[in-house]
């Protein structure tokens, strides 16, 4: 079977991943904001007996790359791994997208254009001359709709067919006739002015003399003129005119040619997306923008709480049934008390409690998916720019922070879209302060137990405290930084789209699957470990947990936690266990107090009375929520910080800093609470 490797490349948010999913059946995350894909992803499928290997690359605006994900794309496209390049273009942004196309054509590799979102531009009343466009570019242009899965076979057929085909003779003419000694118009799509072409020729001659391994001499010559760091280091040349940077000139000439193409192929270009303009007038309004954002987040939270709780009731009934059935079965097979305790009070109490929160998690991710797929996410960067820039961060940094409401791990990965490394490190430091879904389980349980009718407001306050602490932290770092970093907000604002049901379903399904997987692995293991350290002590199996290893560890640390209102050994043990995953705080507490189905009304009544019996009141509950919001993120987040920063010391700094901030803020809250109550 023949193998063919195809690389999908295009501007951010042009639909590469949707196309990749359509071919491979993968469920990679897609959304309507630039920078969703930050890693190279591979998949394969068969087409007419041929194995097609697809590589989805992070979005890039050019091959002169400045961000991490752009470098990933560039390196792959330049490698020998790729047989055919599919340049995915958002038909609605044809003019801007053709800049990358022209750069790709200079690589002298087979390129096919997938003109995506044709259905959207037709609705707007735009037309693209599909005869003239391929004629002017000299490569196949296939109209597709990745979302509606249209044009997929034609595209892959064109890629296979085009693999070994030479670029067709071009039949377009520039406005100005070239008098250059080479008739490059028959060879290349993009032909520069005579002055630039002469310089390219001189560089190619020099390359021929000095270096024998240069494959794409014209491309290298153009990059030499652009003073591309990687190229000038690899192939240093001593030519007087190379002291000057010609990149502006080259870019201008490319856009001149793009202008010619657009004039010929795009009909009714003046027709803009009126809907996006009207919506933006409201959502990005300088006065209403932030209040609307807070209102949207409040609605998200309201739905998570109310609708989620309604469905949660059924899950609680289910867990109750499982717990009783398991206990009956264990009694029936005459299992010992220890095994019954492990299964019922340990595993089912711990993991079962976490599973009951699944409806809340599902609603939260559904809302975030709708926001991400609508195109609102990028607007948040603009809305927050004023505040964020005062804190020494770009408004764009707010996107990873907002994604942190879902899960901190992808949020930290999204920081890759930031150009500046200091910005990225700062975002890694403050993003864990945003309330992730795991912490939601803690808020729901403790807010409902101790604040009943004000539970929703108390839980919402955790989200606001998280944002405020993140912003204040950034501000303090900015002051110490003494303006070493200047932040530049530059982000594309995509057109608003009706969220796609399939995209949203994939997103939510994947997140719920992750949550259940975590319940079945990390939380399951943590629950067993917690059960073990709470049921065994120096003398073996203990009947009283206060004699267990867990109690000894907890009591040892109680003095540290007493000034912040959490001086209870049971709470300390749960907080230590919560470093594995924040849900484990809840499952550990359920195991500690032997409460099965802790989130049910009966479970909560038992749970709260047990907590109150040790002196744990509503102020302590609030402090617990604040501390859980801010202290060391979960193990998976720490691993991601290490991976993204490439530094153990930064990871340790982050963990230590978050612990410090959590202690200080909780201390203030507790002491203030004691003073006021």
């Amino acid at each position, binding site marked *: 079977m023949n193998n063919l490797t195809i690389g999908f490349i295009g501007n951010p948010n042009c639909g590469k991943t949707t196309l990749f999913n359509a071919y491979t059946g993968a469920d990679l995350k897609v959304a309507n904001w630039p920078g969703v894909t930050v890693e190279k992803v591979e998949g394969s499928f068969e087409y007419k007996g041929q194995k097609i290997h697809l590589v989805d690359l992070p979005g890039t605006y050019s091959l002169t790359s400045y961000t991490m994900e752009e470098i990933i794309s560039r390196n792959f496209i330049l490698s020998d791994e790729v047989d055919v390049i599919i340049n995915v273009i958002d038909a609605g942004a044809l003019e801007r997208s053709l*800049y990358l196309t022209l750069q790709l054509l200079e690589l002298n590799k087979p390129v096919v254009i997938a003109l995506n979102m044709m259905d959207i531009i037709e609705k707007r009343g735009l037309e693209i001359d599909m005869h003239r466009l391929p004629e002017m570019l000299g490569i196949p242009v296939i109209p597709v709709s990745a979302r509606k899965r249209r044009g997929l076979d034609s595209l892959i057929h064109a890629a296979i067919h085009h693999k070994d085909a030479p670029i067709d003779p071009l039949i377009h003419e520039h406005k100005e006739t070239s008098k250059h000694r080479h008739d490059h118009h028959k060879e290349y799509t993009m032909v520069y002015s005579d002055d630039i072409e002469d310089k390219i020729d001189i560089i190619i001659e020099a390359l021929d003399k000095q270096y024998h391994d240069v494959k794409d001499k014209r491309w290298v010559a153009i990059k030499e003129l652009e003073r591309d760091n990687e190229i000038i280091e690899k192939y240093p040349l001593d030519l007087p005119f190379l002291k000057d940077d010609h990149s502006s000139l080259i870019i*201008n000439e490319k856009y001149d040619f793009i202008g010619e193409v657009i004039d010929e192929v795009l009909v009714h270009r003046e027709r803009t997306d009126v809907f*996006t303009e009207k919506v933006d007038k409201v959502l990005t309004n300088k006065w209403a923008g932030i209040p609307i954002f807070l209102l949207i987040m409040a609605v998200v939270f309201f739905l998570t709480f109310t609708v989620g709780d309604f469905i949660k009731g059924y899950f609680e009934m289910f867990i109750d049934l499982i717990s009783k059935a398991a206990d009956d079965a264990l009694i029936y097979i005459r299992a010992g008390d220890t095994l019954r305790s492990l299964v019922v009070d340990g595993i089912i109490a711990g993991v079962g409690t976490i599973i009951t929160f699944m409806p809340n998690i599902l609603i939260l991710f559904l809302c975030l998916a709708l926001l991400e797929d609508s195109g609102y996410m990028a607007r948040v960067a*603009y809305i927050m*720019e004023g505040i964020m*820039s005062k804190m020494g961060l770009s408004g764009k940094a707010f996107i990873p922070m907002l994604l942190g409401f879902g899960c901190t791990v992808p949020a930290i990965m999204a920081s890759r879209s930031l150009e500046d490394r200091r910005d990225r490190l700062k975002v890694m430091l403050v993003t864990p302060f945003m309330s992730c879904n795991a912490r939601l389980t803690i808020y729901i349980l403790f807010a409902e137990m101790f604040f009943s009718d004000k539970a929703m407001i108390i839980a919402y306050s955790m989200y606001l405290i998280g944002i405020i602490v993140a912003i204040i932290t950034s501000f303090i770092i900015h002051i110490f930084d003494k303006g070493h970093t200047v932040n530049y907000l530059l982000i594309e604002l995509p057109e608003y789209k009706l969220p796609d049901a399939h995209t949203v379903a994939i997103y939510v399904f994947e997140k719920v699957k992750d949550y259940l997987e975590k319940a079945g692995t990390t939380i399951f293991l943590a629950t067993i470990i917690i059960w073990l350290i709470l049921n065994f002590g120096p003398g073996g199996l203990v009947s009283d947990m206060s004699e267990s290893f867990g109690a000894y560890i907890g009591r040892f640390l109680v003095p540290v936690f007493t000034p912040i209102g959490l001086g209870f050994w049971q709470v300390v043990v749960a907080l230590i266990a919560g470093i594995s995953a924040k849900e484990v705080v809840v499952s550990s507490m359920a195991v500690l107090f032997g409460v099965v189905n802790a989130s049910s009304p009966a479970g909560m009544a038992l749970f709260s009375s047990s907590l109150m019996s040790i002196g744990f009141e509503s102020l302590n509950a609030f402090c617990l929520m604040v501390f859980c919001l801010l202290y060391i993120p979960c193990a998976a987040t720490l691993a991601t910080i290490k991976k993204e920063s490439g530094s153990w010391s930064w990871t340790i700094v982050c963990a230590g800093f978050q612990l410090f901030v959590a202690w200080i803020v909780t201390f203030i809250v507790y002491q203030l609470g004691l003073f006021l109550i």
Partner: protein
Amino acid sequence: MRLCEGSIDRRYLVEKIDLPFALERRLEALGMTIDGPIETVDKKGKGIMIIKIRGTRFALGYNITKNIIVREDL
């Protein structure tokens, strides 16, 4: 004048971009070229703006808009 001083719903031509090398090239790659047109869509604060470059909307921070010199496209 500087772009940050521009008004909403106007069309300007770029005269000069005075930003760090990489950022300047990036803006050019997005189509903000010398003598190229840009349209202002929204503005807040000292000069945080939404502009349209070659049909695509971008949000730009003040640190960018204050360093782009434009003239009105009459």
